[in-house]
């Protein structure tokens, strides 16, 4: 329960000494709400429609993933990692495998890296498509949801054919990939690329120039570049504020330096810019996939990794550019088969801090739009 005697929330929001002013209202957008993207509880202090302050209460989806890691071996923990950001599970797996590979000082062979890149970028498109559908639904347009989910189905079919599961893929292993590409993988991916490019144009036709969409998203949820960097916000939110920072270009991993793609940057840092940045990112991911699938090198798919993984004593922090931001894994090894500590830096958790700053002075309808534009997944926030 919030300690109302402590300075902080209520004083900060401008309350005049008493608990609530006469025309102020506390609204609880509770854990069960159609548009909080999971079980997020936001307590809003309102003056009529204007928001004076917010407080986020999280933890409704906490499952103790990091604690579980201390009792599983490194290979056994791999499936658990997918369940954090369940929308972009391939990226989670990639980050974890890269971290353990760094601990072990092995590198995945080029063929495995190319396959990893293809799957990760397809997953980025899928995650952004889900984001677009749910964000549009929150703002009131109910049809883009169905269109993006239909297109996302094609990606999930490719995942199913490759690794056997659609959502919690467990696609990668420490040292490379387990599965060889199936018969017709390249054709499927190429067919998908040709299929989805006009669909992305359709999403834009429905939304980008629509006057109602522009009015709902332009100028809403502004965050400046300095504030974003100060709060540690990463991913499309940071890039929409004008900061040119993408881990795929700044600290390339898994052979990303071989691919030619751009990093879209926004100007104002409002919701509309975040929308444009993510749609542009989808197209850039498509570009990466098309380049990669044309040139997968031959070779092994798994590096020489011992059957029982016992990394040397040490610690490592590896971060990747997940669809939602910088996803980091800090792994401490004490020489045994089970890690001593696995700490996950979830992008959604850090991005959620920016909610308060973005929403002060806006209307209640904007709170919903801003939660949507931050692209949070509660599985990742709570772990």
């Amino acid at each position, binding site marked *: 329960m919030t300690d109302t005697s402590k300075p902080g929330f209520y004083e900060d929001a401008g309350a005049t000494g008493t608990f609530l002013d006469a025309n102020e209202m506390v609204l609880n957008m509770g854990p069960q709400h159609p548009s909080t993207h999971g079980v997020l509880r936001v307590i809003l202090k309102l003056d009529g429609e204007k928001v004076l302050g917010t407080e986020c209460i999280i933890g409704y989806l906490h499952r103790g993933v990091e604690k579980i890691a201390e009792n*599983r071996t490194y*290979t*056994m*923990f*791999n*499936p*658990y990692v997918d*369940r954090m950001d369940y929308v972009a599970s391939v990226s989670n797996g990639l980050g974890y495998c890269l971290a353990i590979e760094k601990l072990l000082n092995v590198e995945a062979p080029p063929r495995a890296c190319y396959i990893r890149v293809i799957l990760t970028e397809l997953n980025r498109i899928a995650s952004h498509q889900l984001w677009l559908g749910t964000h549009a639904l929150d703002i009131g347009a109910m*049809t883009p949801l169905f*269109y993006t989910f*239909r297109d996302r*189905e094609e990606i999930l*079919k490719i995942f*199913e*054919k*490759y*690794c*056997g*599961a659609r959502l*919690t893929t*467990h696609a990668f292993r420490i040292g490379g990939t*387990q*599965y060889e590409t*199936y018969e017709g993988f390249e054709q499927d991916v190429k067919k998908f690329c040709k299929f989805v490019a006009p669909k992305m144009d*359709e999403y834009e*036709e*429905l*939304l980008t*120039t*629509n*006057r*109602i969409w522009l009015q709902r998203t332009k100028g809403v949820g502004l965050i400046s570049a300095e504030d974003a960097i100060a709060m540690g916000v990463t991913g499309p939110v940071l890039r929409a504020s004008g900061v040119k920072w993408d881990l795929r270009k700044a600290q390339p991993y898994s052979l990303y330096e071989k691919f030619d793609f751009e990093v879209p940057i926004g100007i104002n840092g409002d919701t509309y810019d975040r929308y444009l940045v993510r749609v542009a990112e989808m197209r850039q991911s498509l570009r990466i996939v098309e380049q990669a699938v044309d040139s997968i090198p031959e070779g092994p798919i798994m590096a020489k990794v011992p059957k029982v993984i016992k990394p040397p004593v040490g610690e490592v922090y590896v971060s990747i550019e997940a669809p939602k931001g910088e996803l980091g894994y800090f792994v401490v090894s004490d020489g045994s088969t089970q890690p001593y500590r696995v700490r996950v830096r979830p992008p959604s958790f850090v991005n959620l801090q920016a909610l308060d700053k973005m929403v002060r002075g806006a209307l209640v309808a904007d709170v919903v739009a801003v939660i949507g534009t931050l692209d949070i997944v509660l599985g990742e926030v709570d772990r």
Partner: protein
Amino acid sequence: MAIAPLLRKMFMVDLMKGLNVTFRYQDPKEVYTEQYPLERPVIAERYRGLPRLNVNPDTGETLCIACNLCATACPEHLIAVGSQRNPVTKRKEMTTFTYDVSRCMFCGLCAEACSTDCLELSQDFEIAQYSRDDLVFDRERLERGSEPTVYTR
């Protein structure tokens, strides 16, 4: 004052474009729904569904050699392999095999670890049962495998 954007605003061109997109999608060919019990979905070969213990097709004997690698690999420790040593051939033989599907996350580590082609995750996705105990599979259920459910309504 640019004339083209003003005209576009007056005649609501952006709204008309959106209306055009939704109108075009009413074509019955665009419908993406599969009417489930009547149309079964196409499942990939590598799909990780319900587990199955394979038997030798000629002799009907189990392919399991009770090496216990699957139980060691499982993150949830839900496999229990019972074995006894055959005094004649001096090899271990599997007697009981318990697999708790209710806790399984279908990660596939057990099937990867299996040294013969015995334990496999099949394409069955219709897992629902009426009681928790029915979800703990014993050897007989695992070897029988699953048939596709027949829907009458």
